[in-house]
């Protein structure tokens, strides 16, 4: 039985707006990431992917608030921990997070080495400059980054290089779990492939034990992760292995996502793209029943009559949230 590194159980979180309207961005999400496995989260913009990432680190800074559920990180329950403590004790050393525009977070007035020193001193003030330099050199070499990057300013680096540097720095303290939130969305296809290769290398060489990969690009997820969860309007609508979800999607929304894929393969031009019509529901007042009902082409009256639709388990971790099938 492999060890479960990240175990999120029925987690709900909300955003509290200025006018005290609660937006339930993550609604009863359960997920498990085992040691040596990677999990992908797919979904369109605004479906709560990034909020889920913040929530499962226990990073509750206003306007994000915790509602219910449990998060276990490597057997330790971090649900009730103070976010400030989490930031100092857990982030970086136990779990690491690469936000969407991570490469813009590099300080333009500091060299990369100073940035690495700051990161390490924040967690271990006793580290000497020499130790840090040796560690940085060793890591950069292993991850295929030239040593000269350490002495450069961020403006001297290309986008792909900046992103790879940020990833290398984010795992320098040896976190067990890495959450990568759209690490390649601002890059061109060539740099994207390098970033992905780096993440896969990190997993294979054991620097990180498990990875959560968030993106809207299904072909990318399919090639990188072991399991995929599809998210819609704050809920998980389908989960399974990468092959199952991409090649044989069950939920109408996952099917819709598959219909809008563009890959340079023969015969794709003749194929008509099927975009999902409409827009996702407003989470201030989510519709009862199936949240996808308004955009679904297989909709029947029952879809909206039932108050909540539960995940239907098919065994082996495969599940979907639909009453139709």
């Amino acid at each position, binding site marked *: 039985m492999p060890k479960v590194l990240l175990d999120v159980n029925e987690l709900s979180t909300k955003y509290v707006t200025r006018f005290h309207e609660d937006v339930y961005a993550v609604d009863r999400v359960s997920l498990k990431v085992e040691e040596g496995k990677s999990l992908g989260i797919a979904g369109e913009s605004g479906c709560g992917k990034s909020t889920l990432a913040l929530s499962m680190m226990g990073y509750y800074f206003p306007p994000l608030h915790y509602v219910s559920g449990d998060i276990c990180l490597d057997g330790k329950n971090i649900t009730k921990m103070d976010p400030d403590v989490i930031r100092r004790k857990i982030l970086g050393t136990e779990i690491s997070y690469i936000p969407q525009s991570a490469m813009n977070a590099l300080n333009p007035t500091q060299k990369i080495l100073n940035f690495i020193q700051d990161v390490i001193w924040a967690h271990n003030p006793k580290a000497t400059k020499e130790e840090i330099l040796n560690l940085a050199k060793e890591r950069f070499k292993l991850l295929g980054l030239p040593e000269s990057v350490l002495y450069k300013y961020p403006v001297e680096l290309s986008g792909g290089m900046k992103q790879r540097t940020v990833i290398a720095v984010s795992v320098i303290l040896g976190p067990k779990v890495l959450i990568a939130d759209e690490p390649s969305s601002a890059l061109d296809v060539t740099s994207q492939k390098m970033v992905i290769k780096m993440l896969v290398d990190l997993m294979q060489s054991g620097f990180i034990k498990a990875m959560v990969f968030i993106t809207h690009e299904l072909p990318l997820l399919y090639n990188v992760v072991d399991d995929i969860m599809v998210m819609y309007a704050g809920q998980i609508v389908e989960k399974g292995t990468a092959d199952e979800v991409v090649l044989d999607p069950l939920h109408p929304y996952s099917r819709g996502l598959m219909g809008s894929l*563009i890959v340079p393969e023969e015969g794709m031009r003749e194929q008509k793209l099927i975009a999902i019509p409409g827009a996702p529901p407003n989470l201030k007042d989510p519709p009862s029943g199936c949240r996808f009902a308004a955009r679904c082409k297989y909709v029947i009256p029952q879809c909206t009559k039932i108050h909540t639709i539960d995940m239907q388990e098919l065994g082996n971790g495969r599940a979907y949230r639909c009453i139709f099938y």
Partner: protein
Amino acid sequence: MDNGSGSCLKCVELTKVYGMGRTKTLAVDHVSLEIHNKEIVSIVGESGSGKTTLAKLLLGLTEPTEGEIYFLGKKRDISTHKKRLEYWKNIQAIFQDPYSSFNIFRKIDDVLLDCINMRDGKNTPREEKIRMMSEACSFVNMKFEELTNKYPFELSGGQMQRLMIARVFLLKPKILIADEPTSMIDACSRATILDMLLKLNAEEGTTLIFITHDIGLAYYLSQTVYIMKKGRIVESGTAEEVILHPKEAYTKRLISDVPKIREEWDLSTVVYSTE
């Protein structure tokens, strides 16, 4: 001129050099291409290959260092502000970042109203203007009633990009340059936007120049594909020729870098760049 085959935009030996002396960068290096009426052309290349500079040159936003641009068979003249405005009635662009494409202080109706006024519609009665605006909004599957009195930042990225297309629909330019219009948009809205660009080409006869780094999108949209590398055009031809039977190693790499589903995506061949 609208016979469907005439030359719409042509550039000969176009060159743009940024900087001078030791920091001189050849962004666009003697590029010659001819774009026909109602054609869909894609320009594909990695970041830093000069795609956007080429678009800026074609749009007249920067002056070329060398070379000529011919528009509708005549040499392009944008020496005065008036001539430049006249040129921009014929050529319009959609840029990468929808969030910074709009004036944040102006409401959406004003943005669309400006387009009508720019197309000599100043004296059109108000009802007619509203009809035109709602027609443009329905072209991009949006409701004009829901957009009135809203500011651009109240919309999502995909909606903003569709609003850009609605602007183009009202302006009815001959040429539309779309510079990575979908790179900041999620995969779901991307299909919608690409289909709208195709519809614009089919219904309005707009010549489309599509700039992207994702060769899959180029294959889906375009008839002709130009591959750019370090400011030069290294390969060109019809989409089938270039993408299904590439000749250059660079083109092959661009194709292999796109993640695929039915074919294997090989990560072991990746060489880390040192730049």
